[in-house]
């Protein structure tokens, strides 16, 4: 790399070596990028490009090598330091928060100083989006954006930071032509201003269009670096391909039989118009750069998605449903789709063949063991025992368990997606042999692999896909790694979604945005309250008298405060079952300190103690969940029981009358309205504002929306979650203050009901139990409506039964209406 450089390199990596569990991912790699330069990074799937960039952004620490940034040697590069230095990366998988609006996504991800003055925030955000040609409303939820729009948002975030070095990881994959042109012109402008750009791509055409220099990696090693103008496509291809073969493949089909698989005009989500025939004894391979529709194709062939066109196996056309039942699908994502990790090897292998092992109706263990063990042993699965959990096995042996399940199920067709990913070399050879045996037995075998060399060795026929289209079909002596890669990297097709028209500006009307927004439930609740109130008033003229209004709002005050705390717990995707008993315990504590005639000091001590206990409980809840990995239900249920115990420990029967003066102060009112309710309303408004406009609120919603993305944009997830439980307890404390005046005595039995009613109020207010979206105003309205309904029972002279019936219907109808509205909006967004 001894090129004469007039300027200092922006980033220079020398002699980088990185190993994972002893396997070298990078060996002695040099890479540098200069200011005002676009440096393309080329290489096959798994050549080490992403690993190298993870080293460059501080995500991985190299085992050897040095990093220099603008002439300064960097000892240890951390993600934090990297972003401080001005290194920005646009990942293939955007770190966005689906439940937040476009504007909130930008504000949550970017530093505050970026949006100063705050009143210009909208204008600044709009300019950012315009800069990358993203034409969406700032108020749209990111969940409703298309894949391409989400990518543009991610790119906008990277540009906003005005980085010194920008890494673009296959940025054009989901984009249409216009967006790509716009992106390129933006990149060129940045480069002109002296920014250094690393551009990872698989497309030679893009390298020619954008890059000044190109570095090629293969097998984690440097293959060369050159100025783009001085190298031909053929020379580049030679550098990319030619990996060493690590293992032998079984012999290919010598005498193919009749056609046993025929796809005609096979189209589905993410790919289109695949027509191909395969013969008995042949293995069909699917090649291409990862993420070009291959996995969608495999999923659809396994019957998991609907398709158009026909699939004939052995001369019979199969529907999607039949494919689902009769195909053996080996998913690429074994962990999530392939195996139940907490079940045993035997249970996983046998699951689709159980009917074969039954005597009368019961599964016979000897029969099951005999057949399943025979298959497992034939596949040479290595495990401590057949009853060991699958999670204890190596990747290769797990894949063999999936294959054993496939074999035992006697499938019509085998669909293997990345069957050797994460599998050790020894097990690979056995997997190849098995796939060959299945194929020879007459069952069509389709293999998708990101490893072209593997397909060259294994398959009799390979189709190459690019952005959802078949761009080449190879057989015989044409079936080589070189041809596959050439077809993939020289393809210029546009993504299927681009052609479908699902890319591009989808405009949402103001009304439908409101319906899917956070305030639709609140509006609904207000309408319900007015209708209900009007009806009761028509039945009973005393309904709106001062006493009744005061009583409704008073009851709603305690519930409202506690429910606000619950809202915070739900916003982060958790739940706090302990709020009810906590409020009860705090009142019991108060009953020892705040009595008639207590000195001020005693009253203050009581309040202080209540606050300390509340905060401690919140801290404990949060720590159990984050550090001991309890589920939120288990942790707060344990706390629920314990707090109840402490209440009874302090008072086994109601005692300790609360000071009338203090009660009077707490329950003082303005006209018919309790002062405490006014405080509740102000608190809700302030919190609501903070939830939308302050980092506190973005962090809460971001964490609940997508923990992983939240972490990637730099939110301290642990602290956010633990603090959420502390806040939840704090508001239980606020509720308890009103409750102590209302109850007037330390009663250990009181309070527990607030757990379930607080959840009810929050759900009525439209806060999602999945986290990420909600509203404090809605919660307070929910609390008032709930109390109003209880109160209505009395006024209408109905029996207690109706209390429960109304309560049940209210929560169910609200849950159904909100969830149906949300799903419809989602489907519209995806259509």
């Amino acid at each position, binding site marked *: 790399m001894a090129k004469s450089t007039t300027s200092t390199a922006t980033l220079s990596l020398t002699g980088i070596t990185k190993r994972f569990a002893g396997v070298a991912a990078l060996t002695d790699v040099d890479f540098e990028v200069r200011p005002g330069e676009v440096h393309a990074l080329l290489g096959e799937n798994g050549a080490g490009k992403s690993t190298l960039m993870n080293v460059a952004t501080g995500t991985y620490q190299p085992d050897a090598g040095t990093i220099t940034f603008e002439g300064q040697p960097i000892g240890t590069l951390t993600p934090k330091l990297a972003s401080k230095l001005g290194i920005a990366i646009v990942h293939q998988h955007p770190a966005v928060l689906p439940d937040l609006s476009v504007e909130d996504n930008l504000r949550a991800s970017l530093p505050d100083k970026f949006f100063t003055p705050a009143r210009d925030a909208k204008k600044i955000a709009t300019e950012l989006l315009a800069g990358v040609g993203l034409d969406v409303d700032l108020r749209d939820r990111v969940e409703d954006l298309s894949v391409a729009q989400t990518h543009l948002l991610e790119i906008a975030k990277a540009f906003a930071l005005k980085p010194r070095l920008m890494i673009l990881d296959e940025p054009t994959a989901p984009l249409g032509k216009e967006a790509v042109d716009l992106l390129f012109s933006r990149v060129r402008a940045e480069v002109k201003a002296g920014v250094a750009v690393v551009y990872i791509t698989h497309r030679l055409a893009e390298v020619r269009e954008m890059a000044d220099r190109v570095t090629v990696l293969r097998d984690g090693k440097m293959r060369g670096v050159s100025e783009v103008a001085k190298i031909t496509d053929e020379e580049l291809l030679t550098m990319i391909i030619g990996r060493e073969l690590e293992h032998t493949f079984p012999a290919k089909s010598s005498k193919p039989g009749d056609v046993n698989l025929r796809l005609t005009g096979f189209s589905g989500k993410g790919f289109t118009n695949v027509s191909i025939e395969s013969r008995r004894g042949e293995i069909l391979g699917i090649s291409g750069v990862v993420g070009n529709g291959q996995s969608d194709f495999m999923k659809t062939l396994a*019957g998991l998605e609907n398709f158009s066109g026909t699939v004939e196996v052995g001369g019979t056309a199969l529907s999607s449903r039949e494919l689902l039942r009769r195909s053996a699908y080996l998913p690429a994502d074994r962990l999530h789709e392939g195996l139940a990790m907490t079940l045993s090897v035997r249970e996983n292998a046998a699951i689709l063949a159980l009917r074969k092992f039954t005597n009368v109706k019961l599964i016979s263990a000897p029969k099951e063991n005999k057949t399943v063990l025979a298959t497992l042993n034939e596949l040479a699965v290595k495990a401590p025992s057949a009853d060991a959990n699958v999670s204890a096995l190596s990747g290769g042996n797990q894949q063999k368990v999936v294959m054993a399940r496939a074999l035992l199920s006697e499938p019509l067709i085998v669909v293997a997606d990345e069957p050797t990913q994460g599998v050790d070399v020894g097990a690979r050879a056995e997997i190849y042999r098995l796939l060959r045996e299945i194929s020879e037995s007459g069952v069509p075998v389709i293999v998708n692999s990101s490893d072209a060399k593997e397909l060259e060795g294994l398959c009799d026929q390979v189709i190459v896909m690019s952005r959802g289209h078949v761009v080449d079909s190879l057989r015989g002596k044409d079936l080589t790694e070189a041809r596959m890669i050439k077809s993939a990297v020289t393809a210029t097709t546009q993504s299927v979604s681009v052609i479908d028209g699902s890319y591009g500006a989808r405009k949402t009307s103001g009304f439908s945005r409101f319906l899917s927004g956070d305030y639709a439930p609140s509006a609904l609740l207000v309408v319900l309250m007015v209708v209900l109130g009007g009806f009761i008033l028509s039945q009973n003229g005393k309904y709106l008298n001062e006493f009744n209004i005061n009583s409704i709002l008073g009851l709603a005050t305690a519930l409202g405060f506690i429910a606000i705390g619950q809202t915070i717990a739900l916003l982060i995707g958790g739940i706090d079952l302990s709020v009810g008993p906590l409020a009860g315990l705090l009142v019991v504590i108060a009953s020892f300190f705040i009595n008639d005639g207590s000195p001020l000091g005693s009253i203050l001590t009581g309040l202080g103690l209540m606050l300390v206990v509340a905060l401690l409980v919140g801290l404990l809840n949060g720590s159990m969940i984050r550090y001991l990995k*309890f*589920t939120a239900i288990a942790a707060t249920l344990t706390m629920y029981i314990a707090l109840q115990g402490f209440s009874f420990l302090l008072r086994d029967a109601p005692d300790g009358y609360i000071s009338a003066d203090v009660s009077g102060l707490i329950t003082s009112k303005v006209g018919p309205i309790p002062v405490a309710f006014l405080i509740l309303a102000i608190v809700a408004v302030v919190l609501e504002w903070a939830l939308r406009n302050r980092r506190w609120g973005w962090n809460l919603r971001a964490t609940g929306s997508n923990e992983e993305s939240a972490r990637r944009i730099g939110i301290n997830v642990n602290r956010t979650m633990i603090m959420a439980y502390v806040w939840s307890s704090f508001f239980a404390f606020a509720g308890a203050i009103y409750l102590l005046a209302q109850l007037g005595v330390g009663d250990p039995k009181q309070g527990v009901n607030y757990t379930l009613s607080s959840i009810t109020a929050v759900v009525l207010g439209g806060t999602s139990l999945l986290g990420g979206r909600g509203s404090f105003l809605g919660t307070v309205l929910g609390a008032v409506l709930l109390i109003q309904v209880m109160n209505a029972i009395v006024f209408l002279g109905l029996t207690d039964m109706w209390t429960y019936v109304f309560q049940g219907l209210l929560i169910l109808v609200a*849950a159904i209406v909100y969830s149906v509205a949300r799903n419809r909006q989602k489907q519209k967004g995806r259509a």
Partner: protein
Amino acid sequence: MTQTETGSRVLKASRFRLSKGLLTMAISLAVLFVLSATLAPSSVSVNVVSSWLQFSAILAIIGLGQMLVVQQGGIDLSVAGAVSLAIVVSSQVPNGHDDGIPLAIVYGLAYAIGAGLLNAFLIGFLKLNAIIATLGTNALLFGAVLMVSGGIPQISTQLLQDLAGGDTFGIPNSMYVALVVLLIVVVVSKKTVAGRRFEMVGANPRAGKAMGLRVRSHEGLSYVWAQILYWLAGFLIAGITTQPTAYMGNAYLLPSVAVVVLGGTSLLGGRGYPVATFVAALFLKQLDQFVISLGVPYAVQTIVQAAALAIGVAIYTVNWRSVRTRISSLVAGKPKAAPAAS
């Protein structure tokens, strides 16, 4: 077959595996018994043991129902309403006449299956959150409780008292019923095709879907099976406590979740441990008896329960191996970061 190594790698099935949950609960129960016998002998007297078995049986049946729901990654808060409704139907419908019992059974089961189907529809089909849906169903069930009872308790019929509250060979009848329920749950979930698929779907719904299993049906129906067990428990309670009140089911909500968790079934779903859940019910009830016999207040009993639950969850969820390695690496001085391979 390219067998390159010796026969030592031939896979065998190991039978009679004892789950961690069962082992933990069995040892805990044994220790508790020794403690009870030495520190509070009255807690292991014949009368106390008999009532212990009776109430353990009820909790075990309810706990097994909750376990089926938890296995599908859900949670059932409608336990309270369901048990209460079963109790009032079993005592109100016969109105003191023994020949009304069959009708009470029919009504009770019909309500139970109806409530189960409602939950199944809301959670399996509409994909509502289990907490919200069962909270709503619970309120509706209490509405039905008050509709049936009118708020006035009714004495159970003599036959029901004899059947549910009686003894056979010195052991309460309810315990026999609980054992039969346990046997059925074990056999159906471990020995039938449907049961094995049920566990698979609960352990990994996405994998179940990719295999073509009926994920929604299994998930939804778990609530129906649970309701049937709640009904059975309520029916027995009606016989045991001759004059039942309308809200007796409330006392079972938290313990039902506690025994499931103590038995080792993960709240995230997957494999169920029916025997361990059963033993956990015995343990929790004996803990009550022990603490009562010691003469300490009800409060301590509750706190001990919470502590047992916390320790129980910690045993199953905390990754003790990683804790040990972290501690030892801290002692050694150099914590080693090992990022996952890309």
